[in-house]
């Protein structure tokens, strides 16, 4: 469904992606792990077209991601951003219903609001949150609103960028469970970026580890602990010693 072939991207002298190859099947939940600055977010943004790769090919449902109708392409996606990326100037329900009130097949204001409240309920928020502004919400609530916005238009593919960053362990667990439930329920294809191992184990069907701009290891989450890959072992066991150089 989503294929990256030899994708490369540099920022000046910094070669972030050095030839990423990745396949994500339809309905699969792929989690990409790796240290900070290894190119996970860049790979995700390349798929969405937010960053243009220097070379390589990205296809979504067999179609080249860089060609064709951009609106139709993006309509397939929902995305939960690391910091929520909620629009400060809009109320919670307007954030959730943002896509529903624009473009082809846009809903009336009242229908969009009803649907937004339904999605807010789905992520565990009450209807009274709808008229508040993002700045009035806690970090966990903002993530939930971001999640509600990502699933509002029922996309085929959902991206999660560091979904548990900045949350306490209990809230992280709640968000992980929600993501898993929603992905299974919608039958969506999911691509998650994280370095939180509890998220990996809760969300993933498959795992890919990016190190130094290439996919170091990929396989089912069940094989992760017995992979024998020294890079993956060091990462998932949080060891300071190993082939990955840790700056002290």
């Amino acid at each position, binding site marked *: 469904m989503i294929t990256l072939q030899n994708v490369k991207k540099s920022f000046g002298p910094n070669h972030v992606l050095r030839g990423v190859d990745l396949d994500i099947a339809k309905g699969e939940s792929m989690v990409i792990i790796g240290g900070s600055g290894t190119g996970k977010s860049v790979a995700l943004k390349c798929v969405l077209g*937010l960053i243009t790769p220097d070379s390589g090919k990205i296809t979504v449902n067999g179609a080249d991601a860089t060609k064709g109708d951009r609106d139709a392409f*993006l309509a397939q*996606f929902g995305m939960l951003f*690391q*910091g929520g*990326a909620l*629009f400060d100037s809009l109320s919670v329900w307007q954030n959730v219903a*943002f896509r529903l009130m*624009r473009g082809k097949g846009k809903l009336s204001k009242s229908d969009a609001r009803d649907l937004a409240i339904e999605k807010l309920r789905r992520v565990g928020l009450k209807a009274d949150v709808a008229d508040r502004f993002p700045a009035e919400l806690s970090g966990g609530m903002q993530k939930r609103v971001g999640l509600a916005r990502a699933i509002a238009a029922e996309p085929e593919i959902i991206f999660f960028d560091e979904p548990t960053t900045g949350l306490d362990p209990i809230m992280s667990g709640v968000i992980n469970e929600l993501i898993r439930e929603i992905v299974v329920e919608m039958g969506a294809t999911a691509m998650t970026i994280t370095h939180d191992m509890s998220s990996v184990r809760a969300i993933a069907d498959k795992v890919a580890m990016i190190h130094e701009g290439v996919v170091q290891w990929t396989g089912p989450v069940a094989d992760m602990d017995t992979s024998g890959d020294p890079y993956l072992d060091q990462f998932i066991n949080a060891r300071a010693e190993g082939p990955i150089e840790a700056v002290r």
Partner: protein
Amino acid sequence: MQALTFIDNTLASIGRSALGLCASVGRIIMFAALTIAHLFRPPFYFREFAQQLLTIGYFSLPVVGLTALFTGGALALQIYSGGARFNAEAVVPSVVAIAMVRELGPVLGGLMVAGRVSSSIAAELGTMRVTEQIDALTTLSTNPMKYLVVPRVLAATLAMPVLAFIGDVIGIMGGFLVGTQRLDFNASTYINNTVDFLEVGDVTSGLVKAAAFGFIVALMGCYHGYNSGRGAQGVGKATTNAVVSASVLILAANYILTEVFFTS
């Protein structure tokens, strides 16, 4: 040898700065062209446009009005004392009117709006860039140029002439108040002299200038905010750059437009 290295380094530094400036100018021109192209292509966001018209236009009225009022008053005093040197005190009403309408209304109004609006647009868009809200817009199938940039640029371009016109009237009133209360001008003579010497071309040239300044103010705010660097420092730098570049460009554009209007 050391002298040669010094000259070499100095020339290289000048060259780098010149190339950097050319690249920045090129990027701004591309951004402006893209903005203008999006102006004429749907979808159009009327709600955002109306909101910006209110924020940029209506809420700038106090600052533009006060600037014009004090400028008109000071101008009347200056022209009176300057004119007294060659017995030309009577020109105060006409010169205040012409100076306000042609030059000071649009230019000072533009500079004040640059300080208020460019900075706020750059800070808002810069924060949206840093917090990934602009990326979020894209993923929600909404073009950020159309949704964020076009309404602001269009609103500023249309609001600025109205602001300048109001500023002109208030500035002339400032001159009138000082003229009649401090300089013993007869009120009806003052008004007659103002109206008689003012031509339609004076007013329209000022309004066209104001529209150009409005375009510059919003464009600079949007450009620097949209391309803001990371973190609080990036947003701060974008805000400063927006105000400085908008102010300099207003003064440069003012000279060019004055050449076009009044030397032919």
